[in-house]
């Protein structure tokens, strides 16, 4: 595969939290236009992989590129949806303010978001199906609504490559459906999506590509090739959740 066809790749990425190694010499590539599911047991380094690529965690070794460039050159083309548990939902701000934050990267040091930015925020909320919640204080949202607000915040950035950390965690069926519609729509537009995901049973529903991770890469590639029973067994060292999945999958 040529470098031009990759939305992002990382070579020889190793990360440790203090003395605890988390990722060992990971080589990871994501083709343009794919929906890449990053799957693995708890503590396998899924979120760390994304964070290290985006410079939120300093790796010991390794280099990441996005559309063939280092991160700082193409930041505007990359969107990040963090886990909703990572922020304080008691913070005094409204849903539309939260979504508008997605535009702050374009504003420079001193400019404030204006009518145009707020308009984009409302449009993004419409896409995720919660425009009526725009003026609510963020703490009033349910788990699913919080994830939809976070998704709207990354939509507002209008990136070509999305990184999503557990977007379906703790959400209701209605929110999940609304978010899947948006993801499908993005995929149709040719956007690339990297999803950290922990629910094995739904991986094939969303993802064109899968990376199985357990400290290092177990398998990575198109779903049909990488997401096999043998690879899942190796990645999960056959734990409870995976066992149940393997049984139902036959």
């Amino acid at each position, binding site marked *: 595969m040529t470098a031009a066809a990759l939305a992002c790749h990382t070579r020889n990425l190793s990360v440790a939290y203090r003395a605890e190694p988390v990722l060992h010499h990971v080589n990871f590539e994501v083709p343009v236009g794919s929906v890449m599911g990053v799957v693995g047991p708890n503590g396998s380094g899924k979120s760390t992989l994304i964070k290290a690529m985006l410079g939120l965690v300093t790796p010991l070794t390794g280099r990441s590129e996005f559309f063939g460039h280092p991160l700082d050159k193409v930041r505007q083309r990359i969107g990040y949806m963090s886990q909703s548990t990572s922020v304080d939902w008691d*913070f005094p701000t*409204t849903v539309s303010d939260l979504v508008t*934050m997605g535009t*702050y990267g374009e504003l420079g040091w*001193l400019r404030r978001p204006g009518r145009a930015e707020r308009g984009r925020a409302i449009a993004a909320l419409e896409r995720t199906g919660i425009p009526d919640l725009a003026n609510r204080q963020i*703490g*009033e949202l*349910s788990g699913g609504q919080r994830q939809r607000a976070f998704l709207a915040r990354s939509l507002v950035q209008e990136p070509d490559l999305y990184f999503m950390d557990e977007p379906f965690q703790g959400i209701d069926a209605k*929110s999940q459906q609304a978010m899947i519609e948006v993801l499908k729509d993005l995929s149709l537009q040719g956007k690339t999506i990297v999803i950290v995901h922990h629910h094995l049973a739904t991986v094939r529903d969303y993802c064109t590509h899968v990376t199985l991770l357990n400290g290092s890469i177990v398998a990575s590639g198109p779903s049909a090739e990488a997401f096999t029973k043998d690879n899942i067994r190796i990645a999960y060292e056959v734990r409870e959740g995976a066992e149940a999945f393997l049984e139902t999958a036959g």
Partner: protein
Amino acid sequence: MSFLLGTTLLAIVTALACALPGAFVVLRRNSMLVEGIAHAVLPGIVVGFALTHDLNSPWLIFGAALAGLLVVLSNEWLIRTGLLIGDAPQGLVFPALFAGGVILLSLDLSHVHLHTEVILVGDLNLAAFRQLVVNDVSIGPRYLYVMLCVLAVNIAFIAALYPKLKITTFDPEFAATLGLRTQLLNTAFMFLVSVTVVAAFHAAGALLVISLLVVPAATAHLISHRLSVMLGLTAAFAVVGTLSGFWIAYVLNAATSAGIALFYGVMFVAVAFADKLATKLRRKRRVEVDKSAQGTKPAVSEAKQLDRSRSKNKPQVAE
């Protein structure tokens, strides 16, 4: 300007200068770090005082604020090393610096005479004692103008960088992915907090300055759903609390900064209680409206839901 008016104005300006950055300190959960700064600046203040013989000297304020920043940076570094867990790094750094200040004081360095009580709780009246005289006319305490400068710098900083402060406070990780210099902004902000703490030290001391920074913002946070509203209410609570505390101390002939800090505490409890009461009344009224409108079983669950959407305790709204 009369001494009483000058001192009152000084109290209000000091309270405002502390309370506005205090709103971000509270939201960033850095309150105890500021407590650390307030203690750690002591050696800087003692050395600065020995050199300048003036607690209001800009050089002293700048130098001591650098000592305060040392706490912030060494605290962050110690957390990164993982040598100490939780907020233990603060327990390591600031008592050591404070102790250094106490030892410097006891060495009677260049005959520095700073009273222990002034160090702990400050003395507003003493701070207001030196008047600024222009053309033989007193235009208020010199210290008032120092605090006015600090207030102006704080307002300018917050106004200019408002969106950046907001996003780095709410979601620093997301801010970093946007390419914002979160570390630089954090250091600049904590330096400003340090400057404010040192400047207010004379009036409020190492112990009570934390009250000026934290309590008005914490009170406003109870009832604010927007950051801009919270900042406005923070300023309002700072002014009301200061005036009330000031006059109580004046009437009782008690220590002024202690009177203000105590009234701040009373104000917080009163607002928290009033907020709870208002929530309860809203719920009750809603149930009654439902009863009379339907003439059937009260829609308690719906009333609770409405109440939740207004309450600051905010459990989740149903889908």
